[in-house]
């Protein structure tokens, strides 16, 4: 018998945990689960957020240097391209290579035009952060009531 909402929450918590375990089991047992940089689909995973006057983009680019990356913007069209080079050391025997190398290109159509002159891009800990200010016309406006 459930006596409190907390009990129901706990039940769902347990169910979610089981679901995650099952996802892990059937998805890619013993293999990197979704974080492999595959050559066939060599595109970094990307998140897009809308934050007031800006769009914020985050992309996973582990092992890439600043000069391995290109960001191009035109209107609401954004293109991120780059190349991941091998960081295999000299004179070592290779046992396992899962991380993959190669070049990629990915393009996005943003929900609105952005001001390409004010775009900021930062690379930190293998994640590319882009701040894209919206074009004047696309900014949220406050309408005053007379």
């Amino acid at each position: 018998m459930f006596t409190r909402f907390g009990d129901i929450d706990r039940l769902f918590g347990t169910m979610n945990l089981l679901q995650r375990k099952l996802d892990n089991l059937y998805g890619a047992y013993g293999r990197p689960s979704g974080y492999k940089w595959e050559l066939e689909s060599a595109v970094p995973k990307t998140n897009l957020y809308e934050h007031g006057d800006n769009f914020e983009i985050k992309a996973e680019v582990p092992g890439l240097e600043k000069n391995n990356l290109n960001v191009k913007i035109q209107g609401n069209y954004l293109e991120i391209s780059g190349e991941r080079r091998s960081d295999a050391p000299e004179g070592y025997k290779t046992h396992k290579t899962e991380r993959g190398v190669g070049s990629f290109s990915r393009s996005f159509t943003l929900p609105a035009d952005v001001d390409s002159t004010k775009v900021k891009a930062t690379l930190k800990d293998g994640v590319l952060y882009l701040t894209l200010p919206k074009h004047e016309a696309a900014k949220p406006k406050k309408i005053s009531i007379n």
Partner: protein
Amino acid sequence: MDRAQEIVKQDERTVEKTHELYEATPAVDIYENDNEILLHADMPGVVKENISVDIDNGKLSISGVRKLKTEGAATYTEFSDVEFVRSFSVPQTIDVEKVEAELKNGVLKLHLPKSEAAKPRQIEIKTA
């Protein structure tokens, strides 16, 4: 005390441990030379403070927690906060005291030096 109250009281004592974060297996490259085993692991977005490397009884476990600050409403997301977890068997001949780790551009590089006894030795052949 009725039965319902009893159940509530018992629940408050049991602490359930559940992983809040999704677990992912990081992609790993492994290299070896005469002196060391070198391990490269992709861990984008993980900061130094959130990485732990443990070697115990021939088992190497690496774990890195990624917590990214997000602002605004998500239009779409392909990745989220995650815990990168992976473990390996390592030979007992690894010199645990001298293991070195570096983190750069979201890649963890782990140097596992072999102990002196395990290194290959050139044996001189004497002619009688």
